């Protein structure tokens, strides 16, 4: 390879990163204009397990959702909560929501209320938001044990300050025995759900987490400690593929595909540039 060619290639290694920022912005805008067909294969076992477990919920039980994500995890967790609640409403499954983050109840309500309204879900009868529950001494293990033994004593009021005992749905939801499964959605859900919720009370647990936490939690799916896992927007997209309802997960997946292709290309180009600059340095 000629020196001129190597010099040109080595320029790629010393490229100003601002060009990359501009390029990725353009790349991520393209999918907003152009829509291409995408694969609807559910490749991982996580979403399927969650879909099957949620679907087997008996009429006299509820699904507990620990929606503790807030602004810091919104881009990934919002789509997960949306697709899961959409599915529960479609299958007429009742659910109870609570949060262990101060800001989370507002975000959960913003997602759930429109879906519940569209599906004719009545607050207090078909679903309840218990709002923020402070883990005692900052320890989630204590909260899970207390919650599973006596929900009404652990959280006597809902998100609006209404007495939990006065809500029709909560009359029959008092302990872990009245809960079919737990779905914990957060950037990194509390792993105490696995140790105490599953280990001590035998509740099926599923997680919705950020993509970055996916590799850490997949081992728990493999050991059947988690019945399902939605990792990032891809998890939400796969769950939407199972339900046949298109939501936020599907909207961003095209941009993801474009973005990841760009990252792969950038890594390859950067490596070619690095190789060329090394060759140039070694040349006499």
């Amino acid at each position: 390879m000629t020196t001129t060619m190597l010099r040109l290639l080595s320029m790629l290694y010393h490229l100003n990163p601002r060009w990359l920022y501009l390029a990725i912005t353009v790349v991520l805008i393209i999918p907003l204009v152009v829509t291409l067909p995408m694969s609807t294969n559910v490749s991982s076992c996580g979403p399927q397990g969650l879909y099957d477990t949620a679907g087997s919920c008996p009429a006299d039980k509820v699904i507990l959702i620990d929606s503790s994500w807030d602004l810091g995890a919104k881009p990934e967790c919002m789509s997960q909560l949306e697709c899961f609640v959409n599915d529960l409403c479609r299958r007429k499954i009742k659910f109870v929501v609570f949060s262990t983050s101060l800001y989370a109840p507002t975000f959960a309500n913003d997602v759930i209320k429109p879906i519940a309204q569209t599906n004719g879900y009545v607050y207090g009868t078909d679903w309840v938001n218990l709002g923020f529950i402070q883990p005692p001494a900052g320890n989630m293990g204590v909260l899970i044990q207390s919650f599973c033994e006596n929900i009404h004593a652990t959280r006597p009021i809902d998100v609006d300050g209404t007495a939990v005992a006065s809500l029709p749905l909560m009359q029959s939801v008092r302990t872990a025995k009245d809960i079919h499964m737990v779905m914990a959605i957060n950037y990194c859900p509390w792993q105490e759900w696995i140790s105490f919720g599953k280990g001590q009370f035998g509740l099926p647990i599923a997680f919705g987490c950020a993509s970055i936490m996916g590799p850490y939690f997949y081992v728990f799916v493999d050991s059947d400690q988690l019945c399902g896992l939605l990792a990032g927007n891809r998890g939400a997209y796969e769950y939407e593929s199972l339900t046949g309802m298109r939501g936020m997960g599907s909207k961003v997946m095209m941009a993801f595909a474009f973005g990841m292709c760009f990252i792969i290309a950038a890594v390859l180009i950067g490596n070619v540039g690095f190789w060329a600059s090394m060759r140039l340095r070694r040349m006499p």
Partner: protein
Amino acid sequence: MNNPITVWVGAIMTLTILSYLIKDNIFYRLAQKAAMGIGVGITVVLTWQQVLQPYWWAHIQGAFSHKEHWLNALWLLALIPGAMWYCQMSKKWFWLSTPIIGLFVGVAAGLAFKGQILLMLPQLPATLKPLNPWVLDGGPTHANILFCLNNLVFLIALFTTLLYFCFTIKADNRLFRLPMKVGRLAIMVALGAMFGSTVMTRMAFLIERIQFLAQFFSEQISALAKLVTGG
């Protein structure tokens, strides 16, 4: 986020934060400090509204407004252990904070011990995986053979990774040199997967903001076009 003021503030703040990509500037720093201040302010208000008011103050108020609930006045005593935490700030009174810290550390350690056992113990039987497709339902079908091969890869990665962390074995040991190399390779693959997932998470944040800005600008342009054409 339908309020126009909220949308405008959101768009301006997003652009201000993204301006850091061009160069560190005063607007970025202002936005950063404002975000921190707002965060602290909201936390103080929400802590009162969601924790202290319903779980503590409401009981005390009830004790003074209803004589039959006078025992709830005992909730005032919660101030004593609460105040003990703040003794950490004084050299003279530091010793007063130690019992309450000890109590919390003890509870946390006990629960962490129980939690880790319940979390990690089921992982051990989960490593016992079938390697013989003939013992599986349906015999040596294509799916069962792939399943067993998958299990074999899992077991090789598990044992070689564990071996890699056996520091009592010398790395130049002839018998263990190759398995240790395989273990290192398995760790590298796992780290690669984690790095890929990290990129996906960061990408999700960027996509959300870019889509928000794209929607914002398209709405503003269409509103401006309507204004110009008188539509």
